[in-house]
């Protein structure tokens, strides 16, 4: 039994939990952090891209020490059919700046480092400790948590639920519901190891430079989903994710889907000869603005994936997690400094800070996107990639047909697609983007 009472208990040592623990501890609060894994990161999975700006706001000098893989200098979007991809590649030498904007990271290493920073500021970390349930007083205020350690009741003024997309505590306490099957994607990922020089040659990179490929199209078998390829120092993360509700209807297994993506003629040469050292699966919150649950109450706040904080369009999750963790910590610190209690009315400050930040503003901007991508999945992921690919082939292949005839073919194909709702989809997409 831990007798002392803490200012705050943080559930989870991922991006949101570490940001919250670090921020509160560095302001002098007494923080206990619980992590069910053997070490911070051992239960966490991400692609993963780290956005420097959001971490700089927490640890300005992070680049000196944090385990970073490669700075990203190029982004590729691939629109895929079974044999082809139509790509848009954006590379800019400005990304080789002194303080690069984005990096690839490996979460088990990064989270350990991030957690160590929080501990150095005074946060107490208990690993191999699963939080079982929230403890409430007679007025329904959350006053602590019970863990699977013997006599495991621990008390605090406020509990920060940074327990991830699949967090059990919040749902058990009916603070939020279990995410709906159309609000989460299941992603599977493999770590393909290759020598650094091989990766650099295959992707046209210099040492420490990296790139990202995001791919959509027939690879997701008509489901709403994306494939991704991220370059790390000596490995390539290859994965694919689709909405769980789609997976449930579609008969394909996640491993088949991943292996098909890896066998695609545009992908296979990039990972040829690699050694796979890990196979991971994880849920990604995809419900967007409309799926965000109540985020605060008497004695509790929700941060990170547990709050559905993920921008599916820009593939930003960890920076929303870090920012929500930091803002929750700052709100708690302000309330504490005023010597006021952690009531729902006071913790509303956290939501106000979130609303004023890019987190809620970005999620609101794309509030209609998740439903649109899901409802038009067959068109967006099967029909249109084929159209684009045919148009490109028609443009590039020289076969004796006159150019006028070729243009007519392409126009005819697009006219046919109008029957599938091409124009309606284009308008809806433009509206959802606006």
């Amino acid at each position, binding site marked *: 039994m831990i007798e002392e009472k803490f200012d705050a208990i943080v559930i989870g040592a991922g991006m949101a939990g570490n940001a919250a623990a670090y921020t509160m501890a560095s302001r002098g609060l007494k923080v206990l952090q619980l992590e*069910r894994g053997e070490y911070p990161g051992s239960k966490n999975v991400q692609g993963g891209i780290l956005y420097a700006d959001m971490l700089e706001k927490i640890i300005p000098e992070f680049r000196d020490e944090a385990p970073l893989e490669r700075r990203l200098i190029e982004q590729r979007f691939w629109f895929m059919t079974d044999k082809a991809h139509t790509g848009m590649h954006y590379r800019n030498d400005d990304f080789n700046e002194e303080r690069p904007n984005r990096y690839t990271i490996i979460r088990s290493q990064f989270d350990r480092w991030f957690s160590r920073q929080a501990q150095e500021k005074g946060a107490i970390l208990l690993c191999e400790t699963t939080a079982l349930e929230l403890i409430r007083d007679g007025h329904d205020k959350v006053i602590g948590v019970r863990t699977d350690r013997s006599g495991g009741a621990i008390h605090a003024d406020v509990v920060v639920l940074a327990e991830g997309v699949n967090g059990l505590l919040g749902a058990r306490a009916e603070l939020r519901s279990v995410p709906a099957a159309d609000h989460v994607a299941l992603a599977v990922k493999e770590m393909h190891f290759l020598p650094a020089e091989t990766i650099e040659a295959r992707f046209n990179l210099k040492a420490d430079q990296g790139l990202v490929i995001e791919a959509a199209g027939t690879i997701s078998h008509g489901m709403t989903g994306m494939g991704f390829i991220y370059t790390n120092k000596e490995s390539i993360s290859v994965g694919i994710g689709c909405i769980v509700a789609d997976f449930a209807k579609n008969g394909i297994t996640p491993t088949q889907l991943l292996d098909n993506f890896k066998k695609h003629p545009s992908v296979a040469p990039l990972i040829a000869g690699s050694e796979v*050292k890990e196979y991971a699966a994880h849920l990604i919150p995809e419900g967007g603005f409309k799926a965000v649950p109540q985020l605060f109450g008497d004695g509790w706040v929700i941060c990170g994936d547990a709050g559905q904080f993920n921008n599916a369009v820009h593939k930003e999750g960890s920076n929303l997690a870090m920012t929500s963790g930091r803002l929750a910590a700052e709100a708690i610190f302000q309330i504490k400094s005023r010597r006021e209690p952690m009531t729902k009315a006071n913790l509303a400050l956290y939501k106000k800070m979130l609303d004023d930040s890019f987190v809620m503003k970005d999620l609101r901007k794309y509030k209609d996107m998740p439903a649109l991508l899901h409802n038009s999945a067959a068109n967006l992921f099967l029909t249109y990639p084929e159209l684009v690919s045919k148009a490109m082939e028609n443009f590039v292949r020289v076969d004796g047909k006159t150019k006028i005839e070729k243009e007519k073919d392409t126009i005819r194909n697009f006219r046919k697609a109008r029957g599938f709702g091409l124009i309606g989809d284009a308008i809806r997409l433009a509206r959802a983007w606006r």
Partner: protein
Amino acid sequence: MGIEPQFQKVEEKLFQNRYLVDSGQPHIKVMPHDKPSKNLLAMTHLCPAGCYSQAENGQVELTADGCLECGTCRILCEPAGEITWEYPRGGYGILFKFG
């Protein structure tokens, strides 16, 4: 090393991973049923670790040792009470080397 070892059965993929299995204490349990629900049956293809299978009598069975703790089965089957889903005890279960 050729390209072939990259395409393995899911059991072989799981073999690369690091686990600390809590023997005899599965953290997910399938509730007794005569005929599996649609969602429970879907888990036999949807579980990324291949933990679910259908027995000859039609019932869905689970071996949770290779579980990646993604929570997909919880999303689909916990709300209707077809399974129970707990986290493994602290320190047990999948231990991601890279994540």
